[in-house]
């Protein structure tokens, strides 16, 4: 099977959108273009019940073909990784299921196969997850209420890059904030293989009450085809592509 590149948008937010088009619509558009949208909703420590605004979190992920999770900020690191990895597996499994249907007929999916054979198929999915290339665009909500959560977000992202860079496949990350000063989103970090460099540039804070999640997702989608990506690909190929084990 040919090695592909998985594309994901990881939206980190703490509330609902209040400006521009419906985020569920732009997320659906992403999915149509092969980009999965995952959403993490950060919950305040004193919130005990599921807040109304965060229902949107689930809707966006559903129409973006991804995974959503509500989380207290203390558990953010672990959740960011679980969501990213689970979503990769889900996407890859989707591919495998499609292949299975072609081979075995319409009503065959992984769950309909007996447990013994499922194992062999999952091994293939795991192999793909380990070796495929991955592009993650992190889209962080930096509206005023996120202010005290940003240091945790930063740590979680560095941790995500440690985890993903242990894989055999290659990774590329970039970070955008929304709302931007003039545009819907603002670039914090261009496509790069690691996130260590964000310590100094993050967070660039824009305060203000608006949360244009929908337009932000649309803008984020366009970042996947950009030239910077090609340039980065070439840059990376030069110094030490083969990393020795020790």
């Amino acid at each position: 099977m040919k090695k592909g590149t998985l594309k994901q948008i990881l939206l980190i937010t703490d509330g609902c959108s209040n400006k521009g088009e419906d985020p569920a619509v732009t997320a659906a558009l992403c999915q149509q273009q092969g980009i999965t949208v995952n959403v993490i909703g950060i919950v305040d420590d004193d919130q005990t019940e599921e807040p109304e605004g965060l229902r949107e979190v689930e809707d966006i992920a559903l129409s973006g073909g991804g995974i959503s999770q509500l989380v207290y900020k203390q558990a953010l690191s672990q959740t960011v990784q679980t969501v990213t990895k689970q979503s990769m597996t889900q996407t890859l499994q989707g591919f495998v299921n499609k292949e299975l249907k072609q081979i075995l007929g319409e009503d065959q999916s992984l769950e309909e196969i007996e447990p013994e054979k499922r194992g062999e198929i999952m091994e293939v999915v795991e192999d793909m997850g380990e070796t495929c290339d991955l592009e993650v665009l992190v889209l962080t909500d930096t509206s005023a209420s996120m202010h005290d959560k940003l240091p945790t977000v930063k740590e979680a992202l560095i941790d995500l890059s440690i985890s993903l860079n242990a894989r055999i496949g290659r990774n590329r990350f970039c970070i955008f904030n929304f709302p931007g000063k003039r545009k819907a989103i603002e670039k914090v970090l261009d496509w790069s293989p690691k996130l260590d460099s964000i310590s100094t540039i993050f967070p660039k804070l824009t305060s203000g009450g608006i949360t244009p999640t929908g337009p932000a997702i649309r803008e984020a989608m366009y970042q996947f085809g950009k030239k910077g990506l090609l340039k980065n690909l070439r840059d990376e190929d030069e110094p030490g592509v083969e990393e020795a084990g020790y």
Partner: protein
Amino acid sequence: MNQAWKKQDINIKPGTIIHGKWHQNRYVIKRKLGQGAIGTVYLCERNGQYSALKISEYATSMTVEVNVLKSLEKVQGSSLGPSLLDVDDWEISPGSKCSFYVMEYLQGEPLSRFISRHGHEWTPIFMLQLLDDLEQLHQAGWVFGDFKSENLIVLLNPPKVRWIDVGGTTQTGRAIKEYTEFYDRGYWGLGTRKAEPSYDLFALVMVFLNIYYPKQFEKGANPKATLLKKLNDVRQLRGYRECLTKALLGGYRSSAEMRHDLMNAINAAGHRDRPGRRRRPPNAGTSPLAEGGGIILAALFYYLSSLMLP
């Protein structure tokens, strides 16, 4: 993901019968044994035999775990994980399904409780046992990954430490599948999350630090310094400090190498601590003197207090 909101927790009442869709086996649930990252483990009974049953709605993660258990069984002459007895699905109602697998029920005591009840002299024994198992596992091309106190149990008669959850076991050279922050060298800034023997050796030291710091500790501004200080502060681990420090800093390429050093340290410590010997090794330093002084002080105390008796 303890603090995250779980979408659904499976809670099965004792007495419930779980009926396998594919193999038609029936298991009676007795009680809950534990909760992992992706599933719940119950004690169950079938034909008078007790076993442990792990059930989850994440079919794919369960399949991955079953794959690991099967691979571990192929490692000859070893008992690295619990043995696998059955794999099946349970249809709770049409359209609602869970995956489960049944494994050998390992009955024993948590590591920390065993050590606090039976004494700290067991600590190095368990370290050696675990290093043996790790060596076998690594030789077979696997890294344990999620190595932590909760995943260990001490079987009694004779005491032997065993792994009970192998869910994080990863093929060497890949990205560690599952980990817990306190035991993860990446979290402490002391290495990558690539599956290699040194990853497990770091976690092994953390397992034993956790025994002496049951509430664990924060990493602080300088995680490496914090860690080394905490290790230095544990009196019971002092004899093996050098070896444990080397493991924390990624200095061992293999489990066997660490075991060799640890064995030497244990022998040296045993030599030093044995009371009432005439010949002292030349490098034993001042500790025999201190020991002698202590004995004299104690004798003096008893002598004086005996004078005060009527």
